[in-house]
Structure formats: structure tokens, C-alpha cells
């Protein structure tokens, strides 16, 4: 057993921290509080922040040098997300492009595609959204129905995609579409499609908290060029599944670090309202503190497995259920212990300075649903790990 970070990792963390200190002007919550920042302004702040990170070489750290890589390990990527979460830095707009499309292009794309798309994706000059999910293929991704019909050497897309993060601000979308209606998995192809064209309509989806970070994309005969197919026809499913696995461990330290900050504000709030010495309050705070350490323990174990080359087994699903269900318990407790003040929106008078509980209390409900709901994760654990028989 060795849970220590190497000197190299500690050096990386130290450099990153000092870089964040000098470059991060305002934590994200301050941007959100600033009434001058409408959704578009906020998006541009994210774009600018991504550009800064890219120029500093913090994006695509584990990619080949020519594509901005620096031979980073899984641990360094985890430290990067941990520290940026801890610093409450703006979420970058091309997060899915970098985590999913980047690896897809590097491992399965053509040299032309890499040269054409990677630099502008890293610099946030071009914003990418993800085109995997569909309204009727929620938990059952392979049920996707978007069709890509041959049109000369190119293809015409017809169908609908949902949960396309930053859809409304995106320039391009990477899409899984059917080139063969007969073959459930083998009939899916991976396309790169510009959104600025006839036959494409992008709509925002307003979410529970009132923002519209998500979008829907409707294709009605939109053009998808042959040269913009990643890998071969019919390889889309395999490519998607492999790139979805690359990100393992990247969040292993990030959520516990974020929750450290949440807990700090919760404890401070109890100090302020004079209840911090009450045994009932202390028991609840203690349990939340302990459960966050349990998340961190799972994360460190998960990361250790990955960095020592072991394929994580149940860890991924356990981690997902862990952080997402914990977030609900945490904000339910905060709204109980801090009273109505914790329900004030970030721009309301008297809102807490450090923490936007009103947003968190709503948004946390999404965490147990997206990226494989808790129910899907339990299915995975029961079937693949415990080997329980199918019904």
C-alpha cells in the first residue's frame, strides 16, 4: 500500500496552485453573483478561462506532445480537476470535447481531422457539444435512432439529440448516428457536424435551476461529410465506449475537494447561527464529514488502481453513486441546518457569500440521473460485479 503522492505530483500540484492564485481573478460564484453577467457573458468568461488554461498547458495533458500533451499521468489529471474544483474556477466550455472527442480523434481520427479540430477545440475558438443522448434512448444509449443516410459520398442526418451541454453556444457537435438500421451496435457511426447549416436546429433546455446549459439538437437532412467520419463506418459505438472509459479517475479527487468547501460553509453557517455546539447539529455535521472522507477513500483507491494499471472494477459505479447521492444528503442537510437563508439565490440580498446552496440543492438532483443514473449503476454492480442472474 502506498497512498502518498510522488514528489513529481506534489510539484505539479504546487505549480498549479500558484498558477491558479495568480490567474484566477474571481471564483466562479462571484461571477455568478455579478448582475452584469448574463448567460452569454458567463459563457465568454468560461471561454476565456479555458484559453488561459490551454495557454498554460493544462488541457489535454495526457495527449501526445504535438497536441498539447505533457505526458501527464491519471494522478496529475485528477490533481488538476481537484485543484480547479477547490479553487472554484469557471467550468470550461469544451469539457466534453476535450474528455471525449479529443481521445476519439487521437486514437481513431485521421491526421487531417486532428490538425483541423484539436487546436481550436483546446483554445475554445470552436465549442463542441456532445451528440450521444437521445430522448428515447435515455438509459439505453444503443437504442439511438438518429439516421445518417448516404448522399453521394456524404451523409444526411435526421433525428434528435438531447442533453447537449452548451448546445446553444456550440459551433460543432460530435454525433453518434445510425448508418445501418439493422445492426444495433455495429450500425452506429461517429460523425463531426457543424451546427451552422440548414437542417440543424438547436434549442436550449431550461433546467430545474433556471439556467439553460443544455440543449436539444434537431437534424433534418443536415449534411455530415464523409471526411468528418471518425474511424470507419460502424465503429461509432466502439469508439464511444472506449473514450467514455478514458476519463476514469479524473474526478476521483475533485468531488470530495468540492464538498470540503461546501462543508466549510455549512459549518461556518452553523457557527454563525449559534447551533454549532448542539449535539444534533454536530452529529449531522460529523456524519457528512465522515461520508465525504469515505468518498475520498474510494476516490484514492480508484485512482491508485488506475495509476497502477489495474482496470477499476466496481469502483467507477460506486464512485458515481457515492458522490451523486452524497450531494443530495449534503444540500438537504444544509437547507435544514441553515434555514431559509440557504434557499436564497446567489444574487438575492442576504445570500451567503461563499456558497450557492439554492443552486446546489436543485442541481444535485440531476447528479443521480445524468451520466448513468443511480439505478443504471446499481444494475451494473448487481449484474457485472455480483454476477446476479438477469431476469
Amino acid at each position, binding site marked *: 500500500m502506498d497512498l502518498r503522492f510522488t514528489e513529481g505530483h506534489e510539484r505539479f500540484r504546487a505549480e498549479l496552485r500558484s498558477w491558479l492564485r495568480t490567474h484566477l481573478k474571481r471564483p466562479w460564484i462571484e461571477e455568478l453573483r455579478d448582475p452584469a453577467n448574463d448567460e452569454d457573458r458567463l459563457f465568454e468568461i468560461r471561454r476565456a478561462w479555458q484559453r488561459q488554461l490551454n495557454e498554460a498547458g493544462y488541457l489535454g495533458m495526457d495527449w501526445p506532445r504535438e497536441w498539447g500533451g505533457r505526458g501527464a499521468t491519471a494522478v496529475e489529471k485528477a490533481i488538476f480537476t481537484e485543484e480547479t474544483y477547490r479553487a472554484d474556477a469557471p467550468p470550461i466550455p469544451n469539457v466534453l470535447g476535450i474528455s471525449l472527442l479529443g481521445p476519439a480523434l487521437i486514437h481513431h481520427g485521421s491526421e487531417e481531422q486532428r490538425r483541423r479540430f484539436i487546436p481550436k477545440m483546446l483554445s475554445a475558438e470552436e465549442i463542441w457539444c456532445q451528440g450521444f443522448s437521445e430522448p428515447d434512448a435515455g*438509459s439505453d444509449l444503443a437504442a439511438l435512432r438518429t439516421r445518417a443516410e448516404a448522399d453521394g459520398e456524404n451523409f444526411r442526418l435526421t433525428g434528435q439529440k438531447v442533453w447537449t451541454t452548451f448546445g446553444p453556444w456550440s459551433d460543432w457537435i460530435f454525433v453518434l448516428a445510425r448508418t445501418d438500421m439493422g445492426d444495433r451496435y455495429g450500425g452506429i457511426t461517429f460523425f463531426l457536424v457543424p451546427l451552422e447549416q440548414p437542417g440543424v436546429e438547436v434549442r436550449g433546455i431550461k433546467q430545474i435551476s433556471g439556467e439553460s446549459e443544455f440543449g436539444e439538437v434537431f437534424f433534418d437532412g443536415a449534411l455530415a461529410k464523409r471526411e468528418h467520419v471518425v474511424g470507419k463506418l460502424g465503429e461509432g459505438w466502439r469508439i464511444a465506449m472506449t473514450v467514455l472509459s478514458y476519463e476514469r479517475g479524473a474526478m476521483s479527487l475533485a468531488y470530495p475537494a468540492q464538498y470540503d468547501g461546501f462543508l466549510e460553509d455549512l459549518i461556518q453557517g452553523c457557527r454563525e*447561527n449559534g447551533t454549532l455546539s448542539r449535539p444534533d447539529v454536530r452529529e449531522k455535521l460529523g456524519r457528512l464529514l465522515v461520508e465525504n472522507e469515505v468518498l475520498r477513500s474510494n476516490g484514492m483507491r480508484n485512482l491508485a488502481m488506475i495509476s497502477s494499471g489495474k482496470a477499476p472494477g466496481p469502483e467507477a459505479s460506486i464512485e458515481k453513486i457515492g458522490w451523486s447521492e452524497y450531494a443530495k444528503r449534503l444540500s*438537504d442537510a444544509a*437547507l435544514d441546518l441553515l*434555514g*431559509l*437563508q440557504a434557499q436564497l439565490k446567489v444574487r438575492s440580498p442576504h445570500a451567503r457569500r461563499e456558497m450557492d446552496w439554492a443552486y446546489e440543492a436543485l442541481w444535485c438532483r440531476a447528479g443521480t440521473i445524468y451520466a448513468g443514473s443511480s*439505478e443504471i449503476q446499481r444494475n451494473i454492480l448487481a449484474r457485472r460485479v455480483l454476477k446476479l442472474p438477469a431476469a
Partner: protein
Amino acid sequence: MQFELDEDRALLKSSTRELLEKEAPVTTTRPIMETSPEGFSRSLYAQLAELGYLGLLLDDAAGGSGMGPIGLAAVLHEMGRVALPGPYLELVLSIETLRMAGGDVAQRWLRDAIAGEKIVLPAARESLSGVEPATLATRFEGGRVRGLKTFVAHGAAADGLIVTTAQGFVLVERPASGWSATPLETLDHAQRFVEIALDAPGTLLADGQKACEIAGAVGRLAAFGAAAFLLGLEERCLELTVDYLQERKAFGVPIGSFQALQHRAADMLLRVESSRATVYRAAWALEQDPGQAPLLVAAAKAYCADSARLVCGETIQLFGGVGYTWEYDPHIYFKRVKTLEQLHGSSREQLEQALRAVGV
């Protein structure tokens, strides 16, 4: 023994459902919740007043319909089902305060409030954090009320406030000046809370022992009313969930056929039915068995708050992706629950009340 509502109140409940499904379904109230400055429909409230909904608890002589707590439970239960926006419960609480206080001023305001001509609302809270100060900072001296009240529901629309002060309950008619209301925006976009700084003339409604009695009775009525509204919220969420589980398909079958989801829905049903039994038993106690009321009202508020949080949260979860979109309804119910959990006595406060009610 008989658990069903008697004829009058069964009729009240069914006609209320008809009225609200016609006049105030969520499809109709959405724009009101989202964009109207006051957050509720004046015309609907006028209609409610006209139909006697504000005088439910008063007897005929006093211009009421004498439907009692059981009638009030039935009405708030129905209002919860459509997540009705606006200060209905707060109006009822003010009216009950005025009734108990008595006296000319109270009488005049009582008449106007029941008739829907004046909106009079309670202004009690002074703390943002849920822990009220031991002694109220708001004072009534020399005929003036001075202080800061917070989380006054729909206070911006009030013609008058019933202000809880260190000296007792004081009625403040909205003055030209000395009344400044600051909106407080919460996670529930449907509600309109304000903070009100007062330096205005007022009329003392009740003080001393009388004020304590009123505070106790009206506080209990508030917790009870909130419980009935929460019952409506969770009952409707269960219906929405069951419908969705039957329609929505995954892997080629309705997701309602997955046993894991069936058991979750069964637990929701258990919560809703248990809430129902507890709310109406509390209503019965308020009417016929007052000795039991403190325990049962506390039980109803605490249990319904926990249940509604659980049931409406599960509704979002079982709806999947669309469950956390603005377009679908679950979030409207969930947000109201989060606020009602804290208002009118949080669960922790109610659990303490319950213990005291049995002398522990």
C-alpha cells in the same frame, strides 16, 4: 368509526378540485409563478373569497361557512395538488388571528379580509438562519412599530400586516411611508418573499396571555395547514410518477415494469397514504379532540414534510432526464416542498413540539 369526509366537506373537497382544475391547473399558473410580479392571480383569489374560502373556519354568524379544520384540510390538500401559488394559507392565518383578537379594528379588517377586499398577512420572522432570537427585536412603542421582518410571504401585495412584536400582535395598515419591502429571491421561483423594514403606526391587537394563546393556536393552525398542503403536493407527485412509469419505455418495455422502480413507487404510496391518515386524524383532533391536537399536528407537519421531500425527490429521479427540466412539472412541486419544510415550524421544531405534547 368513519374516516370518509361527511357530505358537506366531501362536497367542498370535490368542488374545490373542480374549481382548481378549471381555474388553476399548473399549465395556467406557470406563467403567473414565473413572471407575474405578485406571483398569484388576484382574480382567482377574488373568486376564492367570493366562494367563501377565506371564511372556512368562521361560523355563519361571522360570515364564514363553518367548515372547520377538516374542511380546511380538504381545501389545502386540493390546493397542494395543483401547487397553487399565492398566500392562501397566510390569509387564513391572519383571519384566524383577527378573529381570536377581536375588537373593532380586528373586526373591520376581518370583514374586509374574508371578503377579499384587503390582503392582510402575517409578519413574524426576524431571522434568516432559521434560529429565531429569544426576544423579538421588533417593538411596538408610542403607537409605532419599528423593526425588520423577513421572509414575509407575498408581503409586497399586502394591504396590512399582522406584525409579531415584543409587545404582542400589532396590525399595521400599509402606510405611505415607513414600509420598505425588499424582495428575497429563493430557489422557488413561484414564491414572493420580501423583507420589510417597518417604522409605521399600528394598532395593538393582543398582548400578554392573549397574545400567547393566539400565537399557540395560530402556530398550530399554520403547521397543520402546511401539512395538508404538503399532502396535496406529494399525492399529486405520486400520480405524475405512476403515469410516467406507465408511459415511458426503456429496453422496449414500460419502465414501470422494473421491479426496483415498482418498490420505490410502493414506498412513495406508503408515504402518501400515511400522510393522508395523519393529516385528517390531526384535523379531526383539532375539531373534536383538542387535547390530542398538539401532538397530532406536530406529527402531521413533521411527517408530511419528510414524506413530501422524499416523494417529490423520487418523482424527479424516476422521471429521469426530463425530471430536472423546467418544462416538466416535478420541480414546481419539489421547490415548494423545500420551502414548506422550513416554514411554519421545521421538522426539528415539530419533533420537539411532539415530545412536549406528551410531557417529555
